């Protein structure tokens, strides 16, 4: 349904009609990444485009600046920027538009700036290109916009190169570059997806402020319904290249007209959604005490700096429960998970599993313990051997532990069925499957030995929200069926709340708070937990 709504004050800065982008495929087939999408953006307004991966939302954003030119893509339809049709202008005119009238910021701030030049130089270069200003004036402008986006000591920091900035700072620098020529429209393509939740909140605040101050319009492309509801007035939902639904953000997210939007919204885990039924606490299955892991920093001879990835963490995991472990990047949560399954040796501390101290158990002794202690990995691409069939990958743990080949393969096929895969495809290779399917295989492999404890390291963070919901549901069912105890590591507080009985919060390698899920989310005791919770965005 392509409802066409004129902007409220009638003045549009951007008007897109029947935008279609095709990429040539094999032979005569063409992949239609964007299929007849139309929308308007009012002066000073904010439109969000949401969709899962492959929905065509980023392709749409790139088309607005004519960035598909000189690639294999075929773009048709109208992109009216004021009076100018970006799709019909010559290259030079489009070049003049870019950065001056319509500016763009990108998802990965790590790679979006040229590593070889000073940040101030890169911003001045853009400013000079469009205004013809002198070096001095351009530098002054660069310092001014850097200061405006909240880079402390901007005059000095303008001389830094991108690698000297943190992720959040780089995104600020990119926003500063966008501000330099005071464009009418800012296109933001997943501007906060690569950032931690607290940094995300700061960046979104900054974009808000700048909008009110300069009156520029915002086109925000994201997969995150929470970000959309927080930052825009109108929203366009995309799926498989088509516009599913559009309208004011409150209406669409509160009362979606389309089933797809409804399903998308239902799949999003919420901080105020239903948590787990509280259950009777069992006896500890795993006890870690004073667990510490230090890494030697590379370089520097004898006086090497030691980085403490995990410092003095002590906790119990009780039989039958799910313990959630949350933290931002660099909090040490993954290091902790890897130590628990003995993929990493702890520097200090002890791990007692099922009454046995396994901290320094040699690999030979570990073999029997391995049966009970398995892991599900984050990256569905690297967690399966691309050169082994999926059936073999799932059956391998059984073979290693001495099950006969035929028996192992039969179990593998049963497990594939159990996790929702077609068992007849057991002789295929991983690249023929989607990310969600691969994650199911990873789970099947971890379950093949019928472990007691399953450590899941960010098992759903590489997946789209609807796939994520399915995998979470599967894990919940399997926990009942296989009588599993689960350690669930994630950066996503809402997901953790949904699956956990108790939650541990980690910050800078330390355990800052550990409590029952309901208590922790209702009344966080630690300052950092409160900051984290405050930064979480919910749709609506």
């Amino acid at each position, binding site marked *: 349904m392509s409802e066409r709504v004129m902007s409220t004050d009638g003045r549009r800065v951007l008007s897109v009609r029947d935008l279609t982008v095709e990429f040539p495929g094999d032979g005569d087939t063409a992949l239609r990444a964007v299929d007849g999408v139309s929308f308007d953006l009012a002066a000073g307004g904010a439109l969000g485009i949401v969709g899962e991966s492959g929905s065509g939302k980023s392709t749409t954003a790139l088309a607005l600046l004519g*960035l598909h030119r000189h690639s294999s893509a075929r773009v048709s339809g109208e992109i009216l920027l004021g009076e100018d049709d970006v799709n019909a202008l010559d290259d030079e005119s489009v*070049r003049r538009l870019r*950065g001056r009238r319509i500016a763009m910021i990108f998802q990965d701030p790590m790679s*979006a*700036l040229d590593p*070889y*030049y000073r940040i101030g130089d890169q911003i001045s270069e853009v400013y000079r*290109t469009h205004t013809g200003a002198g070096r001095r004036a351009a530098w002054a402008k660069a310092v001014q916009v850097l200061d405006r986006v909240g880079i402390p000591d901007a005059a000095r920091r303008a001389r830094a190169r991108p690698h000297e900035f943190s992720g959040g700072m780089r995104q600020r620098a990119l926003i500063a*570059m966008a501000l330099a020529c005071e464009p009418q429209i800012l296109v933001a393509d997943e501007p906060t997806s690569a950032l931690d939740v607290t940094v995300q909140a700061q960046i979104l605040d900054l974009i808000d402020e700048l909008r009110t101050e300069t009156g520029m319009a915002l086109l925000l492309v994201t997969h995150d319904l929470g970000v959309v509801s927080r930052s825009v007035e109108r929203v366009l939902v995309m799926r498989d290249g088509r516009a599913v639904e559009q309208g004011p953000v409150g209406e669409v997210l509160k009362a979606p007209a389309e089933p797809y939007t409804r399903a998308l919204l239902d799949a999003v885990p919420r901080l105020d959604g239903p948590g787990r039924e509280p259950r009777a606490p069992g006896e500890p299955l795993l006890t870690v005490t004073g667990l510490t892991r230090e890494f030697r920093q590379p370089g520097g001879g004898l006086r090497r700096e030691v980085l403490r990835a995990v410092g003095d963490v002590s906790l119990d995991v009780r039989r039958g429960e799910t313990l959630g472990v949350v933290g931002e990047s660099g909090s040490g949560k993954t290091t902790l998970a890897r130590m628990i399954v003995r993929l990493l040796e702890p520097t200090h501390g002890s791990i007692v599993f099922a009454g046995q101290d396994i901290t320094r158990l040699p690999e030979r002794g570990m073999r029997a313990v391995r049966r009970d202690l398995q892991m599900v990995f984050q990256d569905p691409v690297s967690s399966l051997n691309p050169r082994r069939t999926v059936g073999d990958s799932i059956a391998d743990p059984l073979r290693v532990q001495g099950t006969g080949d035929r028996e192992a393969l039969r179990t593998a096929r049963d497990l594939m069925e159990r996790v929702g895969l077609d068992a007849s495809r057991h002789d295929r290779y991983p690249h023929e499957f989607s990310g969600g399917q691969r994650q199911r295989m990873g789970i099947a492999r971890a379950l093949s030995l019928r472990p007691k404890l399953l450590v899941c390291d960010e098992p759903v963070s590489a997946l789209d929200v609807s796939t994520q919901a399915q995998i979470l549901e599967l894990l919940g069912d399997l926990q009942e069926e296989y009588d599993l105890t689960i350690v669930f590591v994630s950066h996503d507080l809402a997901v953790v709340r949904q699956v956990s009985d108790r939650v541990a919060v980690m910050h800078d390698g330390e355990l800052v708070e550990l409590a029952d899920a309901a208590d922790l989310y209702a009344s966080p005791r630690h300052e950092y937990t409160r900051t984290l919770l405050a930064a979480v965005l919910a749709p609506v």
Partner: protein
Amino acid sequence: MTRYLLRRFASTVVLLVVMVAFVYVIFYALPSDPAVLVCGKGCGGGQLAAIDHKLGLDQPEYLQFWHFLEGIFVGRDYSSGPDVSHCAAPCLGFSFQNDQPVLSLIGQRLPVSLSLTFGAMVLWLLIGVSAGVLSALRAGRFTDRVVTAVSVLAFGAPIFVSGLLLLMLFCGYLHWLDFPVYVPFTEDPAAWAKNLLLPWFTLAIAQSAIYARLTRSGMLETLSEDHIRTLRAYGLRERRVVGRHALRGTLTPVITITAYDFGYVLVGAMLTETLFGLPGLGQLIVQSSNNVDIPVVAGLTLVAGAAIVVANTAADLLYAVIDRRVVLA
């Protein structure tokens, strides 16, 4: 930085000692008698013994090796009966063949090798880098195909084949040039250049192919990076995107390899020098190896290793200056 240089220096010394030891092992583990080489077939036992003594060949091998190292750092004395000749540090000994100090043999030939290497390097950088950039900017189109086809051909042609073909064409068939004879730059710069034209191009053809490939793939890779998309999204002119931003990322590995190649070609252009009869270091290596002239081979090995390591270190330093993200360790 200082720490890096110290470490680098230490590892260089170790590498060089290992290389020289290797030369000694090779030459002494195998049956051959240097004294016979020095004296000629007609010498008797007494003469041979005297020569052995003068050269120190009557001492155990490890002592000979030690004296060789000693000579480099503090100099050493050679005695044959009553006369003692002192060889000041750095002493690489004397050639078995003609009794000349190895260092002066190397000194005589260094200008030739430098002339050859330097000129060829300018050529291969010019040809290779511009062909590579052109090819990347026209990726998949006609120009690209021509450049890549030519570079596969040039890459596959051994130096002595392409050199001979050039000789045939320019000296034998067109008669534009005479067979090259080395003329020192100080004597006649024009003749120097004219005579080196063919060797320069011969060397440069093979090298340009490598540099064109390297530049092309580097350029394509850089052009596909996110920050290039950012620059385009901000309306920078394509000339500037390519010339200032993409080229910088591309040239970094090219510079590293240039420094390395300079060191290697300086001492290792044996094929070119042999083919064109240029009296450079490469030709000296071939000749002295064939004559089992151990001191010369050992000395040359040392110089070769040093040249390569120094060039490598220079490349690393340069790299760190160009790309500030690199931490020297």
